[in-house]
């Protein structure tokens, strides 16, 4: 495993909406080895408060040099991060965790909800690049069109057609991602890759289970270290006990997890 703790230069900071921010970091060490589904731990301020780093999925890499994170402002850490400026440095630890397991022999379905869409873009690019089969099915949802639109655009630029769903019906299907997914024809050899709110992931998992389709989910947990030292980031697993999201995940085979407990 190679991991780096790097002062990374902010080469771009964009507000995709009032509370969704994309930061492009100049960090060849991370960009070169990152895999879709992996994440970085970012120090959001210089002081002792907030104390801990925050985890963010790698949402895109480019030119073996840059990588992006895409985040929603939900609290103090993300708010500090949103107030950084281009040209400043961020302390970044990564790439961390084990990402999505891609097998090009099958077909692919990407399902994302809200800011959980972030890691799926990197995955979509990777699939387009290394797998020659059909382009992946993409189903993305959010509460409103205003929230969803900026998250969808990059997929469209990849030439992928996106099935959209919004809670308020302002973009695409009026309702949940899972409803859209139910209406789609999923091949028996498909793998579903899911990232989003817990109830959404559970619903997709149950659907896939019923259809006997593979399903990989990216789990969010409270993380103090992101690198296996604190044992804080657990998710209950089917066979009993817990798995650690930061090094055994964050991407898990949905079947391995114990979904009842939360």
């Amino acid at each position: 495993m190679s991991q780096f703790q790097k002062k990374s230069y902010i080469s771009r900071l964009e507000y995709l909406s009032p509370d969704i921010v994309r930061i492009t970091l100049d960090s060849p060490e991370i960009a070169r080895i990152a895999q879709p589904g992996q994440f970085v731990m970012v120090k959001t301020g210089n002081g002792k408060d907030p104390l801990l780093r925050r985890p963010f999925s790698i949402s895109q890499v480019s030119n073996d040099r840059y990588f992006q994170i895409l985040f929603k402002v939900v609290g103090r850490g993300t708010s500090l991060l949103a107030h950084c400026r281009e040209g400043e440095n961020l302390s970044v630890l990564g790439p961390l965790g084990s990402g999505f397991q891609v097998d090009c022999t099958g077909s692919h379905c990407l399902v994302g909800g809200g800011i959980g869409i972030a890691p799926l873009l990197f995955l979509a690019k990777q699939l387009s690049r290394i797998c020659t089969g059909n382009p992946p099915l993409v189903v993305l949802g959010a509460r409103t069109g205003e929230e969803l639109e900026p998250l969808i655009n990059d997929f469209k630029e990849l030439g992928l057609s996106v099935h959209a769903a919004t809670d308020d019906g302002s973009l695409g299907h009026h309702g949940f991602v899972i409803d859209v997914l139910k209406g789609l024809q999923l091949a028996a050899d498909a793998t579903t890759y899911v990232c989003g709110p817990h109830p959404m992931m559970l619903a997709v998992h149950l659907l896939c289970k019923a259809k006997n389709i593979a399903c990989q989910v990216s789990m969010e947990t409270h993380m103090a270290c992101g690198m296996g030292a604190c044992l804080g980031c657990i998710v209950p697993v089917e066979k009993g006990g817990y798995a650690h999201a930061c090094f055994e995940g964050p991407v898990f085979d949905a079947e391995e997890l114990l979904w009842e407990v939360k």
Partner: protein
Amino acid sequence: MGSEIKNVDLAVSIGPLRLKNPVMTASGTFGYAKEFEPYLNLHKLGAVVVKGISLEPRPGNPPPRIIETPCGMLNAIGLENVGVERFITEKMKLLTGISVPVVVNILGDTVAEYQEIAERLADVDDIAAIEVNISCPNVKKGGVAFGTLPELATAVTNAVKKHSRVPVIVKLSPNVTDISLIARAVEDGGADAVSLINTLIGMAIDHKSRKPVLANVIGGLSGPAIKPVALRMVYQVAQSVSVPVIGIGGIESAEDVLEFMLAGATAVQIGTANFVNPRAAEETVEGLAEYVYENKLGSLREMIGALVLS
């Protein structure tokens, strides 16, 4: 670092155990050390202390286990660990050959359990010392009683000491009225050193869900927030016992280490800071070397207990 700085004398002794510098890592915050190999040179550290080991494996507490608090964090890991058998067969193998002294932190529900773990570890090579956690606040049966009652503290220390071939460090709980009393009790029990502090018992509530944030309801507070309490307790204990004191609590930098040494600590452990900066321990060693060099100290040991009271 220039070679003059490299050659400064940072060595300290914890009883019979000689460390090349006073910077250790704290139990439960440094995994089994291997996790940190991508970030630092383990052999630059004074010692590493591994995650607490119990007789039987423990799954630990359900999630959430951690939450950030102002300048600190609460944890209720619940002493998740593989148990002493798998520790010996699996983890010690990884630790052998990392060329840094390995301290094994142990915990138990009964004096007999502590003793049994000590016995099992006595056969194992490459253990530099045993650190006895008599203070874990996370697990109901995890030792609160031992760390708060002098008699029990003496008894546990005694049981472990009798069955160990290596120095025994007893790790004290800060959640007591008079920590010096407990420190003296474990000294009486034969402890070769004391380490302090473990976490302060705390709690966090989410007013939106109206629930405790931690599944375990209460947890252990660590990080910079607790440093003033840790420093005070180290100062008190250093004046109460004659065995070496290992300072723990909110240490992040060489300056913090100097403060703890002035208060009377012979060595220190870095805990929560490892999460924020996995290079913290090594950078702290470098900072201490620079300090000794720039201030032309004969040895870093000159700082131990050198607090000036006017």
